[in-house]
């Protein structure tokens, strides 16, 4: 078990290095820092001096990966690659274009992101699984068919419309909660209800349909027939046998996103004006703040790899075949 975990952790290192190299190539090799400066400063009326200044402000005025002029170790360390990419492993992301420290910004913005993402995750899972179990209980009836049609219809609606429609109905027509905004402490609740609700509803269609398929696959297995032959009631069979076995494939898809909850949601946060990491990213994209986008890519990858690790570990909790071997 321990060896298994350690091996998974070790495997994460080359992946992180790969991610780092990809981001480096994307940000500095595809376009030279000169190009980026020209783009940001306006392509037409840009002077070489302005470009030089822009680069110096951001530390992009060094060679890419090999500083031939420097001496000794600085040949490697006094480069963009070292300063911008290798430093990331120490979670040192430098400063954003507005001069703020990115790492600090990330720490403060994590909380609002989690305040939306965690309730959406838990509630969404609960609602989707319940709905799917209901459909499976009524399998091969019109209720099941109707439920599936509803799921397909719901998953055919863009998440944008869920948000726009929800904001319009709940906030503009019914005046139940503020349309957007955020506050600290308990005041946050009135701002969070709507985004959480909308995100849960928006997710039901596809996840309930997926879970229904997984449950149906289990229902058709031999051990379910054995359980029924014992005289178990259908509901007990569903909860005790089918749900527990179907949890294994469900976990694969679910656990991996748990760490990513930190990242928040781009769309939701920007629509509802929640100052989380999602809206931070969106603002950075719109302002073309490369340092922030780069930092978010790296953090996102770290969290995903953490998610993979958690997935592996969660198997050992639900699947005795993995735990005991």
């Amino acid at each position, binding site marked *: 078990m321990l060896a298994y975990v350690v091996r998974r952790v070790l495997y994460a290192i080359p992946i992180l290095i790969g991610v780092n190299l990809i981001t480096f190539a994307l940000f500095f090799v595809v376009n030279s820092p000169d190009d980026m400066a020209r783009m940001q400063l306006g392509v037409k009326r840009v002077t070489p001096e302005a470009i030089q200044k822009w680069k110096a402000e951001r530390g992009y005025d060094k060679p890419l990966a090999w500083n031939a002029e420097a001496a000794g170790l600085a040949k490697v360390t006094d480069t963009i690659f070292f300063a911008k990419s290798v430093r990331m492993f120490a979670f040192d992301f430098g400063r954003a274009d507005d001069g703020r420290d990115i790492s600090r910004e990330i720490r403060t913005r994590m909380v609002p992101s989690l305040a939306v993402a965690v309730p959406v995750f838990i509630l969404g899972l609960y609602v989707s699984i319940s709905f799917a179990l209901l459909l499976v209980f009524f399998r091969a009836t019109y209720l099941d068919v109707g439920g599936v049609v509803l799921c397909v219809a719901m998953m055919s609606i863009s998440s944008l419309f869920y948000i726009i429609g929800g904001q319009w109905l709940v906030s503009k027509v019914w005046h139940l909660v503020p349309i957007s905004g955020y506050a600290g402490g308990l005041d946050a609740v009135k701002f969070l209800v709507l985004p959480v609700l909308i995100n849960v509803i928006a997710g039901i269609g596809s996840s309930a349909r997926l879970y229904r398929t997984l449950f149906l696959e289990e229902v058709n297995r*031999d051990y379910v027939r054995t359980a029924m032959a014992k005289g178990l009631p259908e509901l007990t069979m569903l909860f005790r046998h089918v749900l527990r076995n179907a949890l294994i494939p469900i976990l694969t898809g679910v656990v991996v996103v748990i760490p990513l909850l930190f990242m928040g949601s781009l769309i939701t946060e920007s629509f509802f004006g929640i100052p989380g990491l999602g809206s931070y990213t969106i603002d950075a994209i719109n302002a073309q703040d490369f340092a922030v986008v780069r930092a978010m890519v790296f953090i996102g990858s770290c969290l995903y790899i953490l998610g993979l690790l958690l997935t592996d570990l969660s198997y050992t909790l639900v699947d*005795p075949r993995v735990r005991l071997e």
Partner: protein
Amino acid sequence: MSLLKVRDLSVAIGPVRPVQQVSFDIDEGETFALLGESGCGKSMTALALMRLLPAGGRLTGGTVVFDGTSLRELPETGMRRVRGGRMAMIFQEPGTSLNPVMTVGAQIGESLALHHGMTGVAARERAETLLAAVGIPDPARRVDEFPFQLSGGMKQRAMIAMALAGEPELLIADEPTTALDVTIQAQVLDLLAELKAARRMATLLISHDLGVVARMADRVGIMYAGQLVETAPRADFYARPAHPYARRLFAALPDVRLRGTALATIPGSVPSLDRPLCGCRFAPRCAEAREICRREVPDWTFLAQGHAVRCHFPATGARSSGVPAPAGESVAAEAPAPLLEVEELRVHFPIRRGLFRRTVGHVRAVDGVSLRLVRGRTLALVGESGCGKTTAGKAVLRLLPATSSFLRLDGQEIGDLPESRLRPFRARMQMVFQDPFGSLNPRLRVGETIAEGLRALKGRGAEARVGELLEAVGLPGAMAQRYPHEFSGGQRQRIAIARALAVEPELLVCDEPTSALDVSVQAQILNLLRDLQKRLGLAYLFITHNIAVVDFLAQEVAVMYLGRIVERGSVDEVLRNPRHPYTQALLAAVPAIEPSEVAPVRLAGDLPSPAAPPAGCHFHPRCPRAVDTCRASYPGETAFSASHTVRCHFPG
């Protein structure tokens, strides 16, 4: 007084009617066996009794009266009390029929809680008692284990324990031993017989195996195409089967006495059950069918006490037991140069563990096997599943990398040839696989499949020979244009043989080619293989677990246990006069259709893991003769004749 009375039971699944007007009784403490080939409706009958038909299936007629209650009219809640409580069922595949994420104890406990309201410590103790009763050693530990920690035989025992938990009056056993090895099957059958005697529990046994039924049943019912065609007390049935179908089944069984003759086969196939049938449903395949058979559905004819048959012209005489084979058939006088020589074949798979996946040991799937095979003869490699016989077969063809071996085909060393230089030899040795459904690419026409080898090894001009090859295996040449899904299992196996024959091999490795087939189809394939051998002088390395097939087809036998050969010799030497205790037990475990008086040797326990074979003689933990010597050293070879050798310290 009948415990269960079934009258005119009919089942429909969509347009298919798998069970039609089946009637039978089971008395208290009696074992009634439903016997028939796959697809005859016997499992569906059992599920219908439990009201557990698959989705879309429904009871369309008839009555089921269990101890005075009509089960069809019972509400679902009442039926749930019967199910598992008074009427329990065990299924064919112990591997998939237990919930993989629940402990054995919890699964037994479910039944105890439902039918006896037993929970907690009481339930746990009861579960342990039940596990002990079905012969699971160390039940206190096993009760907390998950199904994957148990061997196949243990899982089936645990399933029986689960069925017993409700203390049923009727046990339905649906092919309870089909998925098990023959020595384990013997153990489970003994267990079922003991339980029946101890608890006076009635049993509905569903089986396709004439041997198993002969061993277990009090009365027998034969099913064909959804109908019961004959019922009789066991002894009467085995002595004088009356229905032509039943008689044909017996004749299709391979047996040493039929060596050198062709096995009886049943032409044609079972009619499809999605349209109404007229006349006797066996008539199209029946050699004795007359005009009336095709026109009128036969009614029951009563022959003797409890013996009834649905046939216009039932047979009355005793079943012929086959003509004894001419002794000493085709024993090669002086062994010519061998076609295949294998020495010290080893196939080890590394076990990787720990942080850096270091190799910490090996699964010794094949561990020093030597074989010798002469042109035109058959060497049977016999053993139970997991003994390494299939791995050995594939390694001989170099489909698996051998860890070490000397492999000579016709005197030329091929064990270490690179793939490019091996190609000319590939044409000389071919393989026929076990699973007729996995051995043909479903996306290729049969003709393309057969031509593949020709094109790969013999160049152009392949297509012309395809028709010829199909006819050689008894299929019309025009069928080359069809896809595999249009063929039955037996036909696919013929196609697989044609594919192998295409490149004119001298050696054919047959890996259990008939074990997935029904008896009547198996007979066709065995006949075909023997014909081909006679005509083309093929040598067969025949891998099987079926002793009767060995007896019928092979001249030499090698018995494998845990990667090694423990006994070898001619068929007569090994099967008539086995010396190794494992061979003896293996032979004794085969349920015979002829009653025998000899008390059989039973093997305890399961096959150990080839990753950690027992020290000394691999067989000692299960061996009745084992002494300290056996635990200390692996026995050397003892020769009983020029051909008969045994690896045992105390050959008997």
